[in-house]
């Protein structure tokens, strides 16, 4: 580990070029909250191929990457359009191999969470109580069992997941990668510690003093972060608590887009290939975003003095 005083700030295009290579195992986490669509779109623009995409809920961001041909394999626990139906393009890949076949490695949420936790702790595995009685172990040989050295009972296990790179959106970060998140925490901390490299994407770049004024809110210390990208509205259509709401209309509209491969490609042409970067996407979205801006409900301060 090394924490140099030099800034890690760079553009998303630079961060993806430096840290996301063809064939890499990539995790873009965020459970409905703080999903870096900005990173997913840049990976599509840079035409990364043969990626192993890991994430509890593949969601629209992975469906778009799969439809664009970036993915070879998907490691997941729930693949749907949250609250708005199936992911049709993902189903086309799995059911018909369009645009090409997609290998699946499937767990439950608990299983995926524990895989990241084992990865973060550099343990080869961890035990957990699920899967028993389910057909999941039958179709996933990575789900195994051990005997407890104390009680003798058999316990299911999952192997550690250690991606090459984790991409995490946060509400605020300083230029060294020290970053803070509030609201839903998902499995971001575990995914970051489990990964060889971490790209932090932030709504706001703040002074280090802002982070140090409330250390209990810190998600990651900068010394485990490889790159910091400033990307306001970088989660749209997902949300960032305190910044903007979930764009539910976009999730609902996606249903129709993803049903038709041609429609989906037109969408990619317009909203991904057709824009240079997230800033242009944001300008193009215009008022649609501004009406999602969060109302203010501030927390009370606490005293860190002694």
């Amino acid at each position, binding site marked *: 580990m090394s924490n140099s005083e030099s800034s890690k700030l760079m553009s998303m295009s630079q961060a993806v070029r430096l840290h996301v290579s063809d064939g890499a195992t990539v995790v873009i986490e965020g459970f409905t909250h703080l999903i870096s669509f900005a990173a997913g779109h840049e990976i599509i623009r840079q035409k990364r191929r043969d990626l192993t995409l890991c994430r509890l809920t593949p969601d629209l961001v992975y469906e778009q990457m799969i439809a664009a041909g970036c993915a070879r394999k998907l490691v997941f626990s729930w693949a749907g359009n949250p609250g708005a139906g199936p992911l049709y393009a993902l189903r086309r890949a799995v059911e018909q191999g369009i645009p090409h076949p997609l290998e699946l490695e499937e767990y439950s949420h608990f299983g995926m969470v524990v895989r990241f936790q084992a990865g973060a702790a550099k343990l080869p595995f961890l035990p957990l109580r699920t899967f028993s009685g389910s057909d999941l172990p039958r179709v996933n040989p990575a789900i195994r069992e051990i005997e407890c050295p104390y009680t003798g009972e058999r316990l299911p296990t999952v192997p550690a997941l250690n991606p090459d790179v984790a991409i995490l959106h946060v509400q605020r970060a300083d230029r060294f990668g020290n970053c803070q998140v509030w*609201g839903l925490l998902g499995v971001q901390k575990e995914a970051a510690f489990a990964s060889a490299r971490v790209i932090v994407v932030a709504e706001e770049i703040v002074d280090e003093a802002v982070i140090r004024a409330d250390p209990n809110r810190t998600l990651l210390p900068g010394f485990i972060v490889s790159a910091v990208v400033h990307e306001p509205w970088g989660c749209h259509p997902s949300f960032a608590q305190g910044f903007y709401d979930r764009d539910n209309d976009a999730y609902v509209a996606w249903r129709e887009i993803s049903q038709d491969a041609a429609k989906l490609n037109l969408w990619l042409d317009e909203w991904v290939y057709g824009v240079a970067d997230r800033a242009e996407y944001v300008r193009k979205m215009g008022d649609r975003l501004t009406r999602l801006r969060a109302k203010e409900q501030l927390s009370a301060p606490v005293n860190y003095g002694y």
Partner: protein
Amino acid sequence: MATEEAPAAGFTPAELMVCAAARELCDGEVVFVGIGLPNLACNLARRLHAPNLVLIYESGAVGAVPERIPVSIGDPALVTNSIAIASMSEIFYNYLQGGKIDVGFLQGAQIDRFGNLNTTVIGDYDHPKVRLPGSGGACEIAIHAKRVLVIAPQTKKTFPAKIDFITSPGHLEGGDARKRHNFPGAGPQKVITDLALYDFGTGETAGEMTLASLHPGATLDRVRENLGWEPRIAATLQTTTPPTSEELRLLREELDPKGLYL
């Protein structure tokens, strides 16, 4: 109690399902909530007989008090003014596996007579006819929640004689199967469809869906037409109490005014 109030004139099957589910919840219980009808049922119960119901969402919101109907399991409205935000590791390891969850709601694309649920695949796993979303948290909820409530509209397709894949174990092959698997939770206790309410029997038929109550207007024939097997029927078959006008008012005016789910 809501059931003592005046029954309402017209209501939809979905409204009845939500009301029937809400009545299964006791004040002070800790409920692992899903989106859609379960979410409506929990928030309805909270407004009526269970003001201290604790709503937990797998996204990490504990003691949520959503001011609007959540459109996703991770809606920001679940965070604002909640009691606690837990990481998903805490949710699954400490809350669910830790035995702190009283009730879990589950749904299924396929449900068999033992309450086993399939949300993974229709057809063969490797050559699927329809690829479904998968487990999410369902498999562990089915194992750990002290009791499970299943909500699903009733069709032969949804309730086949045999399901293609067991994503979340109910009573497996019935009887004391759950005991043999050392499952901490009691598994499915009720199945609520748009036609009827089922429990899971007792004695030698324990663990098998048993018709306990017909919804107003539903008939045994319609139940049979929409079930993949010949149903067991309780000794004393009840008629489900219809929604009260207060339950319907809350659902229509406050909980789902836009009719997203009803």
